[in-house]
């Protein structure tokens, strides 16, 4: 069973969003479930700092030995920071998906859509695994 922290929000595309309740700037990464499904991550491409994203936009990609998956922004707003460490060492996505393996931060404008609670995300992934 994958680790699903109960203080984050999630998307159907297996991203997590942190800081939604107490900050206008949120942090986004991919879940442990996603990282385990991908296998060893070898390449991460992130959006540019300063770019504006819409909810659901493809903003980057995560490449593993066997496959490539797009990263979607769960929220709209301006990208304020990206995690250069994960670009330099993509293995952080596997080793610490909710910590050192975070991907990018967005200053949120408007309401995010269709985010899942930890319980809903747990239900989603138990159906897929």
């Amino acid at each position, binding site marked *: 069973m994958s680790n699903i922290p109960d203080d984050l929000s999630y998307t159907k595309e297996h991203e997590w969003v942190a800081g939604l309740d107490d900050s206008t700037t949120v942090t986004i990464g991919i879940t442990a479930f996603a990282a*385990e*499904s991908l*296998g*060893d991550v*070898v*390449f991460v*491409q992130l959006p540019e700092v300063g770019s504006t994203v819409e909810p659901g936009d493809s903003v980057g*990609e995560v*490449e593993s*030995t*066997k496959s*490539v998956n797009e990263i979607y922004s769960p929220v709209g707003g301006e990208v304020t920071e990206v995690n250069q460490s994960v670009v330099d060492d993509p293995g952080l996505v*596997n080793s610490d998906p909710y910590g050192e393996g975070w991907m990018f931060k967005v200053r949120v404008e408007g309401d995010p859509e269709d985010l899942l609670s930890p319980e809903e995300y747990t239900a989603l992934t138990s159906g897929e695994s």
Partner: protein
Amino acid sequence: MSRPTPLRDVHQSLGATLTDFAGWLMPLRYGSESAEHRAVREAAGLFDLSHMGEIFLTGPQAGQALDYALVGHLSALAPGRARYTMIVNERGGVLDDLIVYRLGDEEFMVVANASNYEKVAGELRERAGPYDAVVEDRSDRYALIAVQGPRAQEILATLTDADLDGLKYYAGLPGQVDGRQALIARTGYTGEDGFELFVANQDAVPLWHAITAAGEPYGLKPAGLSSRDTLRLEAGMPLYGNELSAELTPFDAGLGRVVKFDKPGDFVGRSALEAVKDDSPRRRLVGLVARSRRVPRHGYPVTKDGVVVGEVTSGAPSQTLGKPIAMAYVDTGADSGLAVDIRGSHEPMDLVELPFYRRNK
């Protein structure tokens, strides 16, 4: 529903990520596929390959039947030896690549890919019809366990009295491994020295445990299909459905040497292959090494000055080279200034001859 191998419970207890592969439920990886890949290059890996097909031909004309059915000269094979060969259609298109073991004067075992073995068994039955030979698909009875890597022989030697030193590359002999009857073959698909053990289904689990225990001091790890694919790619070995297909002849794939025109008698595909054997191929199979970290993958276009000059057949990050690598069919003569169109971005590639990796013997 995917068919499980006799080792499914073992894979599950090891925490394997299981995947459907050619209708079989197979272990993709147990933990990190990169660590499994390294274990095979540096120590040893243990693979469940029970999805492969085992088709037996027995009888006084089994060798002649195979000479007619396949492109190789199998009747010339000495008992105890094995050959890499192919089965083609009348047009010379590759239906599968195979390893044929001669187990005795009148007994051969044809090992076919999981995705193709029913087709291969059907073709062999039909093609062997006029010969005094019996074709029997025994795939359901056999499990196949491979031990691959530089420590493979030391590990196996702790479990068998068989003469492993005397067993050449591409040879096989019956023997006891951990007290169980096996065909011990010095073959594999990783670019390393190693052994493939064909055993009865019921012996697969105890044998797996015995090899795991024996291999532990040597750094042996269970290894899944994901590492098997990156290992064979580094070794430049073709995969049916990627580098090989019914649309390509062995010559197209750069493997014309497996076609033995000088063997006696006709064989299926002979006239079609005779007609093309001296043609200059429009494209050839080459290796590409990426300069960036993005991975060229199956089906991506190869370009030169923005013009498509080929197509990637297999690609993956290479542990050994530290860069992404690919096999690709590329127009003859286009050997510099190449790129692969990776989702819209033309990533520069260096062309190299295959294989990417060759072990020190």
